[in-house]
């Protein structure tokens, strides 16, 4: 051991946290199985399913042809019929192909059947820009937040990926689990004991008194970097990692903004109809028109171009500028 990890934890890669969650869940519940491209012997595009095929075999770790609509639908159908599949969609961009079975059937199943059926399926997908071009870079989790019957979670650390995935696999309805390309190189401390995290609970990663930043997924790391920079300018920033996008943990956010009096939302997706505008609207409903601002990608497709991609995406310095402007304009 390196010795710097908290007691009772192990430091592992993000992908290992996912594999561990799957392994534990699949050992405990024989109804859980995995479907996706390259999930079997290949172990997943990010090796996030390493070891599962060897332990559980082809019946429970199933490679699929490229057919997202069918894949999601088969997952939803098998879930409705009593299983607990995890459908892996390598790029979130291609989740769109599975929207019909997931949203028109899966999310509405309990309601439309008057409670007779439900679809406990987890759709796990990787979002985010990392040099792969306009159709392999999107963060569209905001699109899913408004679907009644659909839960959406987005971890930013290995520990949260582990805990939220275990929780997602225990839910009685459909859950979309969104991770991010840029989270896979990171490692983090994960509890040694088998644990789950509650869905619907945000985490305060950094306490502060002058400004609340709400964020999720990879942007949490950007927010923390920005908070450090703002600290050196004498500003105390509280960073809240949403962790669950649907249902949002509005209580934690409201409680924070009551103290700070200012709210900045940060996401890698588009700000139009994004995660941030929903957070701000709900905070305004509760606290009145406190100063608020949104930071997200510029309104353009995200090219793989090495100059244009970073120009499009939020980074710590853009967040710092937005925070300064927000606090400067605030009437104290």
């Amino acid at each position, binding site marked *: 051991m390196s010795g710097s990890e908290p007691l009772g934890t192990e430091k592992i890669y993000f992908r290992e946290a996912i594999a561990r969650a799957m392994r534990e869940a699949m050992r405990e519940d024989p109804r859980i199985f995995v479907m996706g491209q390259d999930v079997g012997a290949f172990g997943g595009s990010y090796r996030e399913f390493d070891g599962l095929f060897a332990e559980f075999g082809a*019946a429970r770790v199933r490679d699929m042809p490229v057919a997202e609509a069918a894949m*999601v639908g088969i997952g*939803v159908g098998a879930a409705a*019929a009593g299983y607990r599949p995890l459908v892996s969609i390598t790029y979130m961009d291609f989740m769109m192909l599975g929207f019909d079975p997931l949203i028109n059937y899966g999310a509405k199943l309990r309601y439309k*059947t008057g409670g007779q059926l439900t679809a406990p399926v987890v759709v796990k997908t990787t979002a985010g820009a990392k040099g792969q071009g306009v159709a392999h870079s999107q963060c569209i989790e905001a699109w899913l937040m408004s679907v009644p019957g659909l839960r959406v979670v987005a971890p930013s650390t290995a520990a949260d990926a582990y805990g939220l995935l275990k929780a997602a696999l225990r839910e009685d309805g459909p859950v979309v689990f969104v991770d991010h390309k840029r989270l896979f190189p990171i490692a983090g401390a994960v509890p040694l004991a088998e644990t789950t995290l509650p869905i619907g609970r945000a985490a305060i990663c950094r306490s502060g008194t002058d400004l609340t930043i709400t964020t999720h997924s990879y942007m949490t790391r950007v927010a923390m970097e920005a908070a450090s920079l703002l600290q050196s300018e004498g500003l105390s920033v509280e960073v809240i990692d949403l962790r669950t996008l649907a249902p949002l943990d509005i209580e934690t956010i409201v409680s924070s903004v009551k103290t700070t009096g200012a709210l900045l939302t940060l996401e890698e997706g588009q700000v139009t109809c994004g995660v941030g505008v929903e957070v701000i609207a709900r905070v305004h409903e509760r606290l009145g028109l406190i100063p608020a601002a949104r930071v997200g990608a510029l309104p353009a497709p995200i090219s793989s171009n090495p100059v244009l991609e970073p120009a499009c995406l939020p980074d710590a310095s853009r967040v710092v500028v937005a925070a300064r402007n927000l606090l400067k304009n605030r009437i104290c």
Partner: protein
Amino acid sequence: MLIRGFETALARRPDHGFQLLSSGEEAVAVGLCAALRDQDQLLTGGRSIGPALARGLDPKRVMAELLGKISGTNRGKGGRGHLADPAAGFFGAHAVVGGNISIAAGVALSMQMSGTNGVAVILFGDGAFGAGALHEVLNIAASWRLPLLFVCNNNQLSVSTPRSTALAPKNLSDIGLAFGMPSWTVDGMDVEMVASAAQRAVEGVRAGNGPGFLEFVSWRFASHSTTARETRSRAELEEIRGRCPIARQAEALMAAGLMDEREHVSLKHEVADAVAAALAFADESGYPDPDEVLVDVW
């Protein structure tokens, strides 16, 4: 007869709602369901009333559902487009054309994984034949040898679009052959032929031979739905309605000495009574409370 009587009575009501009726296509529903056992599951598209009744769902609860009452199979919240009674082997209708073909494959997969000896049957129209979902699922079902039977009720019209202008294969069942599965095209207006073809197909799937594709060629006697305009001429319709599968079966039974006129009339009364009882049940039942709007969302 029950299906025809039920739907006729429903259509007469001013509050009949948005319905897709099976008149002319009753033989497909009845013949297909005759081949299904308790452990099987039937999924359908939006033309669900005929198949639901044929599968044995209680007409009272179906009528209540269609009229939006809380005593309906889906607590009034699904309507015709989403009728479901999985405990009775009717996993359910889904109103998105082709939208539950992949769902049916998931049900079939669950049966395969559990080893239940059940068969999942997905009934869709020629209107769904062009949908991508069908082709993706044909491939996976064949590849995994899923216990799934594809049944295409080809009534030769998708709202206003004739099958001949929209769909390329000579027989729609040819698509099954392309994926290496047993495939048949059968006359959908003869209930005995439908039943025996369905029996053969279902048992082949049950035996572990992998999926099968059944095409029944039928005729729709009315327009696509209660809101859709009819595109065929009066003369055309008169000719089409002359092919009534119910009349045909009645004639065949009487010709074979298996039913006499008195028994036929008696059946008509039985149907009328059942339909009346269904309507009465539905009319006596209440609507859901407005608070029900937020129940069973999650």
